[in-house]
């Protein structure tokens, strides 16, 4: 036996230090965002001789358009991290928009108000009611999932149908208009954008630096192990879905405020846009992985696409087709990059 060799190989300390976190995985998706924007820029110059990016008005409209989706997507991101899904957010936008708007009407056309005796209320009333309705719906989602054990897909699918039903039933399909200035302020100017950014920052911190965040990832990574580690899975899931509902309610309030009216059909399809933004941003549907920074970038990619299509005056039918292709393409790029990193291994 060669003992000389043994002594030369000193026993190294196993863990040298705490180390640094790896490069954020959002980088690749950020590159996709820049790529798509530059593509529109290029096509813009070639096809219609205009710049896509050097137009503040357009950028402003773009970001306004996606702020509402972004707010929902932040809530959906944390749901997906727990390996769940929330299909109800679009319907909740419709429902909460109707509820909030009905309490935000002015006395101008009092005979056409939903509640003629409840007009000219301070703006807090509709806002709080809208948020509370969203929160309540989220609690219902979460409770169903946590207590009965039915899959999140089914529970929120139920809410998806019912909440839309409530929105339609509420005024028998009539729109709700003549909203107070205090209320519509929330949809004016760049207010929705500011709210989106504030929400994003709060949830970035929440997921990254708090116990709430750590437990959310733990549950999504391995629910059994999380349970044995003393996490109250039921209570936590209810919280997570409640927050998603609350943010959908916020989105509903902003949608009504921005449109200065509410209709039962508001928010149709938003749930898929929100899920798309999260997934493009690197949130894994298998759970345990995802970040708000990624979701914000994913939301911007959706925005750039929408705005780019309008800019190029692409027919609505083509828009949908291309949108589908770009969504899948963006995720493939990400997966491919991750795999390449692994292969190099």
């Amino acid at each position: 036996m060669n003992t000389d060799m043994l002594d030369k190989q000193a026993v190294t300390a196993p863990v040298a230090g705490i180390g640094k976190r790896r490069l954020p995985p959002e980088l690749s998706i950020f590159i996709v965002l820049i790529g798509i924007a530059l593509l529109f820029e290029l096509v813009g110059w070639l096809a219609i001789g205009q710049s896509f990016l050097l137009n503040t008005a357009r950028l402003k409209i773009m970001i306004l358009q996606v702020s509402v989706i972004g707010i929902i997507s932040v809530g959906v991101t944390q749901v997906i991290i727990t390996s769940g899904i929330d299909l109800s957010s679009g319907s909740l936008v419709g429902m909460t928009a109707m509820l909030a708007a009905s309490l935000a009407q002015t006395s101008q056309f009092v005979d056409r108000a939903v509640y003629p005796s409840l007009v000219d209320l301070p703006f807090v009333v509709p806002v709080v009611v809208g948020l509370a309705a969203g929160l309540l719906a989220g609690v219902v989602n979460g409770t169903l999932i946590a207590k009965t054990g039915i899959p999140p897909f089914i529970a929120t699918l139920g809410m998806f149908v019912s909440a839309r039903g409530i929105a339609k039933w509420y005024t028998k399909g009539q729109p709700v208009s003549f909203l107070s200035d205090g209320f519509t302020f929330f949809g004016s100017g760049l207010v929705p954008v500011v709210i989106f950014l504030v929400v994003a920052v709060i949830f970035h911190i929440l997921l990254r630096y708090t116990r709430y965040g750590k437990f959310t990832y733990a549950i999504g990574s391995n629910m059994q192990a999380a349970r044995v580690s003393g996490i109250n899975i039921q209570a936590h899931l209810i919280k997570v879905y409640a927050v998603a509902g609350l943010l959908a309610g916020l989105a509903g309030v902003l949608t009504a405020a921005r449109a200065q009216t509410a209709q039962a059909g508001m928010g149709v399809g938003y749930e898929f846009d929100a899920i798309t933004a999260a997934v493009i941003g690197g949130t894994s549907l298998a759970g345990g992985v995802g970040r708000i920074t990624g979701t914000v970038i994913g939301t911007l990619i959706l925005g750039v696409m929408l705005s780019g299509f309008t800019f190029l005056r692409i027919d609505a039918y083509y828009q949908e087709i291309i949108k589908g292709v770009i969504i899948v393409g963006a995720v493939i790029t990400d997966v491919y990059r991750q795999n390449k990193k692994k292969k190099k291994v």
Partner: protein
Amino acid sequence: MVLSPSTMAAVRKSGAIPNAEFLLTAEGIRKEFPGVLALDDVQFHLKRGTVHALMGENGAGKSTLMKILAGIYHPDQGEIRMKGVDIRLESPLDALENGIAMIHQELNLMPFMTVAENIWIRREPKSRYGLVDHAEMNRKTAELFERLNIPIDPRAEVRDLSVANRQMVEIAKAISYESDVLIMDEPTSAITEREVEHLFHIIRDLKAQGLGIVYITHKMSELFEVADEVSVFRDGRYVGTHASSEVTRDDIIRMMVGREITQMFPKEEVPIGDVVLSVRNLTLDGVFRDVSFDVRAGEILGVAGLVGSGRSNVAETLFGVTPASSGSIAIDGKQVKIDRPVEAIRHHMAFLTEDRRDTGCLLILDVMDNMQVASLHDQFVRGGFVDEKAVARVCRDMAGKLRIKTPNLYERVENLSGGNQQKVLIGRWLLTNPRILILDEPTRGIDVGAKAEIHRLVTDLARTGVAVIMISSELPEVLGMSDRIMVMHEGRVTGFLDRAEADQVSVMDLAAR
């Protein structure tokens, strides 16, 4: 000369290849992961009709080398020869077609499928109409089990099997490929002595049929019992190969760690205090009944028994994972109700589970996330915010104490070697500062050096007044560490033995009663 697997198979069948000296050889193998050189110019030679043990510390590269031979990883450099012919393994399927099968360190069965479906997956017998012939599949499984003498129902769903039985299914599955080379990565870490005996019996049979068997283990006794040769690895490097009859246990350890390890089980007498945990007539219908015992501060209560004796179930029930049907639990003399792990943790209990994959690791999260998760209930958190700096500090210290081998604390746990994953989980529970510590197979997959270190940590905890319950299938561990041993058989406690009166024979006697 590189032949495609199908040509290879044809050549092999024709018997045209002269009997090369070695069945399987690997030379100059190198494999790098980000931040880790897992294998550096490693060699390995397997003779036919032999059992070749691989030994090395946790993270030495044993599993990585075997995964390369099984077509799961591709080496950065190096050559692999099967019966003297160069082969390239692009996938696990390639390896199987070249006659190399592997039993992995972690269980890989599909829980919602039956035992038979798991074994014949991708090779299901078909009926005349091209549909899966379940009757035939079950018959073939029964036949295989009969040959191997494994008493498991082929139609049982895997999720209903115990960890040990799952391990036996994995073994049967690998054997069913009728390969020339069979790689076993720590096959005995999940099973008890009786099954181990059984497995050795199977291994000797296979060896007699001319198979080459690679056997990875951390248990010295097994090495001398079944292995003909042993190769040792350290820090991704090949140290040497010896006939197992020519080396001693200490030689191997010296080769593995490059230093002497003398005291294996540093049992120290520590003052024993008052009763901390008192269990009376604890029953889980259909699983175990009337389990009663006390554990005192500073005491280590060992729990022994065969697979299926209900040892792990009792632990799960104590911790609220599966609430009891009846019976009572008292802590410090006060009755407590524990029907969820949250409550157990509130009473300062900690529970290292048996199956690190299912109920332990948060695989896609990093080392630090895994270590802190059970402590966040009452430590490191102020106003909901986690004090990352404090967490990082204690995690680094704990990782150092346990000698966890990882590039840094932000490495995903799925990238760690099996033994290092186990250490992370031990670290998780030690960080909770428990008063009652329940350990189910604590040193599963842990190398000799680290094992002594973990035993020392447990003893240190006992000295500070922690009450320890330690379940282990390794009798030397139970005998060496425990102040008292509780033995179980088929869901009942068959007796208690004091440290002085306990030995291999007395424990096995109670375990088989």
